[in-house]
Every structure is written in structure tokens, then in C-alpha cells.
């Protein structure tokens, strides 16, 4: 049996055009290559 209120919580507002720019800037675009680069730099600091 579906719980209406619980189901309703799953629905999120749709993105409007006015919010698009803000949405682009607020996205976390960190990927695996960024993490890898950070790890490499950290490890090199430790070695030095």
C-alpha cells in the first residue's frame, strides 16, 4: 500500500529557467580525475 505523504516527499520542484544559471554554478562537478589529482599532490607533499 502506498503512503501518499511519503510518496509526495519524493517529488522535487522542476527547474525553472530563472534558476538555471544558479543551478549551473551550484553543481558539484568534482569527478574522479579531480580526486586523483588531489591525492597525487598530497602524496607528493608527504614525500617531500
Amino acid at each position, binding site marked *: *500500500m*502506498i503512503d*501518499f505523504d511519503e*510518496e*509526495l516527499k*519524493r*517529488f522535487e*520542484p*522542476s*527547474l*525553472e*529557467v530563472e*534558476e*538555471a544559471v544558479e*543551478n*549551473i554554478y551550484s*553543481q558539484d*562537478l*568534482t*569527478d*574522479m*580525475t*579531480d580526486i*586523483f*589529482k588531489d591525492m597525487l599532490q598530497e602524496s607528493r607533499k608527504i614525500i617531500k
Partner: protein
Amino acid sequence: MRCIFCEVTLDSGDKCPGCGEDVRLVKRIIATSNALYNIGLKRAAVRDLSGAVEALKASLKLYKQNTDARNLLGLVYFEMGEQVTALTEWVISKNYQPERNRADEFLNKIQNSPNDFENINQTAKKYNQGLAYCMQDSEDLAVIQLKKVVAMNPKMIKAHQLLALLLMKEGRYDLARRYLRQAEKIDTNNTTTLRYLKECKNNLPKEDGRRRKGKDRDDLVSYQSGNETIIQPRKKHDFSSATSVILNLAIGIAIGVLITWFLVVPGIRQSEKSSANVSLSQANDAIAEKEQTILSLQNEIDELESQIEAANQTSDDAQIVLTTYQQFLSAYIAYANGDTEGAGNALASVNTDYLDATGKNAYDAVAAQVQGDYLNTNYEAGYQAYQDGRLSEAIQNLLRVVNVDETYQEGDALYYLAMSYRKNKDDANGVLYSQKIISHYPDTERAREALRYLDSLGVEPNAPGEEATE
């Protein structure tokens, strides 16, 4: 494939040719990202859009610059009715790869149809309003709003789902199932859609099966014969007789004719009308174009004619200037040869308006020298001819003087000219020059003589200072 450290294009080796970093792990990451993109592509191809989104997001988490994966993610969002989210993905993609990016094509299509773009935004706003109504327990308003959203953007899956959820809450499972089926056609493997469909299925009675059984029972007749129950088909009327066939055919033909008359014929007429309108519009366009061409050609002709006219005018002016200089040269030559009269005559015919500054100065210098001699020679000759009674010759010479200077010798030239005309019986000119004497030299013996002449003719003299008119 580019190095993540220095952006140099990688070769097949394990080290970057640019910075020398070990890129084995980077290559693995990118290869895995590409594999996930391929999975996303396959899922999208079979309309498993939710599954495709999942794979493509994972692909981008590994390598955010995978432009193909990001463009496809945008396309999938677009297909799911999330157009603004799709736009953001394409804009990010364009940011990572400004050149030779397919996102350009998608963005241009949207930019070139501002009405569609506005429609997309309105849909998103209406959906959000519908969701807000749900949160405020105004479910009736939410249903109305979401029905509008579904009509405006039939691809918006979450609008179908939310509408179906509201309908299920109201117990309208049949209608909810219809909206869920539409959502299922867009995204075949959406778990929310499938869960809601299952809920509808559980709550809807199995009508089809029961109907079938009931119908079967209606078609059968059973009765007891001894200990056995006999079941046999109900006897039906045989409608396949010749009469019924003919009747059905006639009804079919009548329906066909009616359909043709009311549906097909208006369509054909409309089509013909549209075709005629298109032809008319094309013809009007062609006429307008021809008229425009004619107008532009006419303008061209007018411009060329004005150029010809200007060129002719310039040519005429040049001819006049040339003639003027020739006359001036003749005057100068005559003067140099001591022919004062010839020089004066030639100078009198020179129109100084066509001389330039240098020519004008030369003219003034020559004229100043020639004019005195010229006037004196003509006056003396004219006066002598008057005294000798050669009146025509006197008039000719004196006229030359008066034409140049009416006041010559304190009006003597004017007086003798008037008297020459008088004696020559040319009273019209005699009166004209007599009037000038009276006007310019009143209270002199010559003026009194001129008055006597006018009086003898019965002509009213001018007041002193008043200009004589011809």
C-alpha cells in the same frame, strides 16, 4: 583523450608526452567513463531513460569532461520533459568543449524557437505550482494544474506520476493507470511508474476476466437430463441471410457516402483552397518581387539620366568657358595690334562670370586700358557722324558708348544718341534716351531740349531721378 594535468593529447603510452606524468590510472578512469556512457546509450535506445540517467551520471562522476555522456544526459532529460535541466547540461558541456560540440545544435534549436522556450518555462512553473498545491492539501487544484501541465508537456514524466498519485488517493485508479501508461511509454523502466502501476493493478477489479466468463455463460444453455447436466450453445438468430447481407451492404454504402460527403469532401475542398491560397500568395510574392525590380531599375535609369544631364551641363559649361576665353584672347590680340575698337567689341562680348580669378584679373587690366580708348574713339566717330548727318553711323557708334557708360562726357553721348534717333525719325528710341537725359541731368540745356522734343510729341516726361523704361 587529453592529459588531466597539462591538457596535451595522450598517445598510446603510459606517460603523458607533455608533462611526463604516469597516466595509466587516468586512462582507466576515462575508459570506465566511456563504458558507462555506452551503457547509458543502450538504455536510452530502448527507452529505459531512468536507467540511462543513472549510467550517464556515473560516467560523468568519473570524468566530467566526457562531452558525449553529458550531451546524451541532456537529451535524456529533454525527453523526460526536464528541458531546463537538459539546458544546464548542454551549457556545462559547451563550457568544457567550446568547439565542435553537438550541444551547439541542441542549444541553437531551442534558441531559434523562443515560443517553445517560453512554453517550457511555463510548464515548469505550473508543475511547481501543482506541487505546492499538494503540499498545501489543495489536491483538487493540484489535479487541475497538473492536467494542464500534462497537456502542455506530454513528456513530463514526474507530472504524470504526481497526477496519478493524486488520482490514486482519490480512488480513481483507472484514470491514474491511464496517465501511468503514458509515462511508461516515455520511460519504460521507471521504478516509480512501475510501483504506481502495480498499486493500480492491485486496486482495480479484474473486469475483463469476469466479463468474459459472464458472456460465456450467456452464450450457453444448460439443463438437467437425468443425472447429467447438458450444456449446449444458445440458439442464435442467423443474420447471414441474403437479405441481411444486402441490408448491411446498403447501410455500409450509405455510411461510406456520408463519410465521403461530410469528412473527405470538405477535406479535399479545404486542401484545394489551401493550395489555391498558397499559389495566390506565391504569385503575389512574385509580383511584388518584380515590382521591386522594376522600381529599382527605374531608379537606376533616373540616376543615369541625371548623370547624363549633369555631364551635358558640365560639357556646355566647359564650352561656354572655352568660348569666353577665346573672346577674351581675341580682345587681347586686337588690343595688342592697336585695334581698340575691335578689342572693345570683343571685350563687350566676354561674359566675366565664366572667367576664373586669374582670367578676371587679366580681363580687368585689359578692359581698363581698352575701355577709355574704345569709348573715346566711338564717341568721336559718333559725334562726327551726327554732325555730318550720317545718322545711322552716329547711332551705331554712340550706342556702343552708352551701352558701356551712360554718363560718358557728362551725358553728351546720351544726348547725341537721343538727338540722332530724333533726327532719324526713330521716336521710340528718341523718347527713351531723352527721358534718360531728363532723369539724370535735369535743369540743363540738354534736358530742356529733350523736354521740348517730348512736348512736341505729346509725351509726358519722367520726374527727375525716375528711371526711363523701354
